[in-house]
């Protein structure tokens, strides 16, 4: 029964209570009376009736008033309070009941408030504990990722479907180096969070390796598999796979770690070495056979005719000459491969000299200086033994000639690096230096069984002693092979702050279908992109001059997995457009044209949903090129302009700048395709929860809602 009805009932009951007893009593008395008594009573009553009625009415009104008061305070007040309690329970935790009404109700309100207070304290505590736990997990993950990124080996972690959960900087650089193509990203873009490793490594080989691991696991053996795979372009990779096992300690594989090494160069070197060995052994057999037979005949039959003797001698002469020539040729061709297999590292020459200087000053107390140093010169060296050799020579010089200081010099000539250790002092004999070269090195209490000669041989180098007469000084010259180091990894960490983006372990359980219209917006992988163009009329000959794109994976914008490419429009830029996009004529000339860039971009956004601001405009440009490039963008497209109109239908403007301000997104730089793509991505990530509040959760719902906005009718 509703509260209002209960109030009415209470009023009726009150009325009955006030009149009922009197009426019933009067009736009983009336029935009991004689006629005379009745007449007397009527007379008596009639005259007093108005005052009685008045009193009763007054009493009744008073009663109703009291009942109403009580109803207001106890029933309606409590109802109000229960509503606010509900609010406290759900929507607004910080809300409190205002103590109001009669003391009992106020006490109840205070008790409820106290309970809420206690609950909040508990919840805050739980929240802070969860946050702390999360933070420590996050920190651990970050530490792991940082560790991985510093590894010299290329590491990629995948889930069972082959989606990449983690990769380190080395892997990124390695695959980028493998990429052959005119754009900055072709091939190299293939490595990315959430992307499939199968686009890089042969799927069947990966599956086979997984099978091998499963069998080894079942057999209780060390779970690991190796394979060698050939890439496009003939590069050879050695891949090692180890499983990631389920956290419960079981033997179920949940993913795998790949360490990848490019062995093309090693294999080539091995092959060349084999070739040398072969040409020097097998290649000599035949010639040696000819000589041996001829010589044997000459020896065994000394009495042969002069003419025959001449012919045998000629055989020997010719064969020996040919062999010598081949030997020279082989050595010239393969000198690089003939070098020692001692593991030498590429080291910056000046770094090694600095190390030697420190050791000499430390151990011998002898001051050192440097002269001309080629600070860009890399050498191939075993730095430990080389520094030791320098220290050893310095020690010998101190013992014999007491120089006041030593100097270093570093220069190069072709493939040879010259490292000079210079001192001022008298001439030394070559015999002395010879003994220094051949004895086991000992200096300042440190010894090694190696001789200076061995160290030099190990480097396939040379060493000699030389005087600079004019300057009254001498030097030891180390000749060492020059190294051509791999390009130092460029540091891209400046771009985008926050946690490193080379991993996302939440992808472990991710499903494999990439574009499914009925999946949640927050679960999909997106490519946010923007184009700069020569003008606003794609159907009138305007062309793309830049494409910038970034990926959104697992609700996070990845600032390192980007596509950023200028395009030669093969037509003049409009002078009035240059201030808008800041791209000038000479920036686009010599860049690849759209025929080359579009397929690379297509590859970059494979299996993702496209997002652009005012996507109809950009998509029109892409579609106009479909026929020419043979590349079709068939995936679903979302437009942040339309989505913004869905969320805020009453706002006048849905320009990107206005939305950025409305959603409180601060973006420093804009009007460059990549920066605009980033901004669009940020807008999209802010819009997703707002759409969810409106019940727009899946991709299909978002596309349908977009189509209903008035902006969806603009055509280009």
């Amino acid at each position: 029964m509703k509260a209002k009805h209960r109030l009415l009932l209470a009023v009726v009951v009150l009325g009955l209570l006030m009149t009922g007893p009197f009426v019933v009593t009067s009736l009983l008395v009336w029935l009991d009376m004689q006629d005379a008594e009745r007449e007397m009573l009527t007379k008596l009553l009639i005259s007093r009736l108005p005052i009685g009625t008045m009193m009763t009415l007054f009493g009744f009104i008073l009663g109703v008033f009291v009942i109403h008061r009580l109803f207001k305070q106890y029933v309606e007040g409590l109802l109000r309070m229960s509503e606010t309690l509900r609010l406290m329970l759900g929507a607004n935790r910080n809300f409190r009941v205002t103590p109001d009404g009669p003391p009992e109700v106020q006490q109840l309100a205070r008790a409820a408030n106290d309970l809420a207070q206690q609950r909040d304290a508990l919840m805050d505590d739980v929240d802070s504990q969860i946050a702390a736990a999360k933070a420590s997990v996050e920190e651990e993950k970050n530490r792991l990722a940082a560790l991985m990124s510093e590894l010299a080996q290329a590491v990629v972690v995948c889930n069972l479907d082959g989606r990449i959960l983690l990769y380190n900087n080395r892997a990124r650089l390695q695959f980028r180096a493998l990429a052959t193509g005119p754009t900055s990203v072709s091939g190299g873009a293939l490595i990315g969070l959430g992307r499939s490793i199968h686009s890089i490594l042969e799927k069947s080989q990966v599956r086979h390796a997984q099978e091998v691991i499963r069998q080894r696991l079942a057999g209780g053996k060390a779970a690991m598999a190796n394979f060698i795979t050939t890439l496009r372009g003939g590069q050879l990779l050695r891949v090692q796979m180890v499983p990631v096992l389920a956290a419960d300690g079981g033997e179920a594989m949940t993913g795998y770690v790949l360490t990848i090494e490019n062995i093309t160069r090693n294999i080539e070197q091995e092959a060349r070495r084999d070739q040398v060995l072969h040409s020097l052994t097998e290649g000599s057999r035949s010639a040696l056979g000819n000589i041996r037979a001829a010589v044997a005949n000459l020896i065994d039959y000394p009495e042969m005719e002069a003419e025959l003797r001449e012919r045998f001698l000629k055989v020997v002469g010719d064969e020996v000459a040919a062999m010598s020539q081949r030997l020279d040729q082989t050595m010239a061709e393969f000198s690089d491969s003939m070098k020692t297999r001692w593991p030498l590292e590429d080291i910056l020459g000046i770094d090694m000299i600095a190390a030697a200087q420190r050791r000499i000053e430390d151990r011998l107390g002898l001051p050192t200086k440097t002269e001309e140093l080629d600070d860009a010169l890399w050498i191939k060296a075993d730095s430990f033994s080389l520094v030791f050799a320098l220290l050893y020579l310095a020690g010998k010089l101190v013992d014999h000639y007491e120089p006041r200081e030593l100097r270093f010099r570093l220069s190069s000539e072709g493939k040879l690096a010259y490292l000079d250790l210079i001192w001022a002092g008298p001439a030394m004999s070559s015999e002395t230096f010879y003994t220094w070269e051949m004895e086991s090195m000992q200096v300042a209490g440190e010894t090694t069984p190696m001789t200076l000669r061995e160290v030099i041989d190990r480097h396939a180098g040379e060493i000699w002693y030389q005087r600079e007469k004019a300057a009254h000084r001498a030097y030891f010259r180390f000749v060492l092979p020059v190294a051509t180091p791999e390009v130092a990894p460029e540091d891209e960490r400046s771009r985008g702050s926050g946690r490193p983006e080379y991993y996302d372990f939440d992808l472990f359980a991710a499903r494999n279908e990439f574009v499914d219209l009925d999946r949640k917006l927050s679960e999909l992988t997106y490519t946010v992109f923007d184009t700069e163009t020569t003008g606003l009329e794609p159907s009138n000959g305007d062309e793309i001059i830049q494409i910038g794109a970034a990926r959104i994976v697992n609700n996070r914008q990845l600032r390192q997995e980007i596509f950023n490419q200028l395009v030669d429009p093969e037509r003049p830029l409009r002078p009035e457009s240059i201030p808008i996009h800041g791209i000038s004529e000479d920036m686009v000339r010599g860049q690849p044209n759209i025929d080359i860039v579009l397929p690379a971009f297509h590859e970059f956004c494979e299996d993702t949903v496209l997002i652009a601001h005012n996507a109809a405009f950009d998509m029109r440009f892409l579609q106009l090129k479909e026929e020419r490039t043979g590349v079709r963008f068939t995936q679903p497209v979302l437009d942040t302009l339309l989505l913004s109109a869905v969320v805020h239908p009453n706002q006048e403007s849905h320009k990107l700048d206005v939305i950025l301000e409305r959603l409180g997104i601060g973006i420093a730089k804009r009007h460059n395709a990549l920066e605009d793509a980033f901004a669009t991505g940020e807008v999209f990530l802010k819009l997703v929860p707002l759409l969810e509040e409106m019940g727009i959760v899946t991709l299909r719902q978002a596309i349908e809602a977009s189509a209903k906005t008035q902006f969806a009718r603009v055509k280009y």
Partner: protein
Amino acid sequence: MAHKILIVDDEPNIVISLEFLMKKEGFEVAVAGDGEDALAKVAAFAPDLVLLDVMMPKKSGFEVCEALRADPARAGLRIVMLTAKGRDTEVAKGLALGANAYVTKPFSTKELVAKVKELLAA
């Protein structure tokens, strides 16, 4: 009657020595410069023993050896393979194809003569 020996090699510098050596040992000698020539000479000259080089133009020594062994009329023909390839696998192949002996260059002339005589005496 002197045994007849066919020398098959495309390198004149070894042929000259082998020819001289075998003549000195009292054999009747013929020379072929490649594989096809060798098969023709075997037919025409009917040697008792062939000194067969492996690496030759047109037909390799292995092919010649196979062709000779495929002819049952020539079952008595002795074949000594001479080669500049010293790998075990090649030796095994030569012997499997029916060569009586396999000599790797550089070889000792004395040993070669001894081997030839031994094969012809058997």
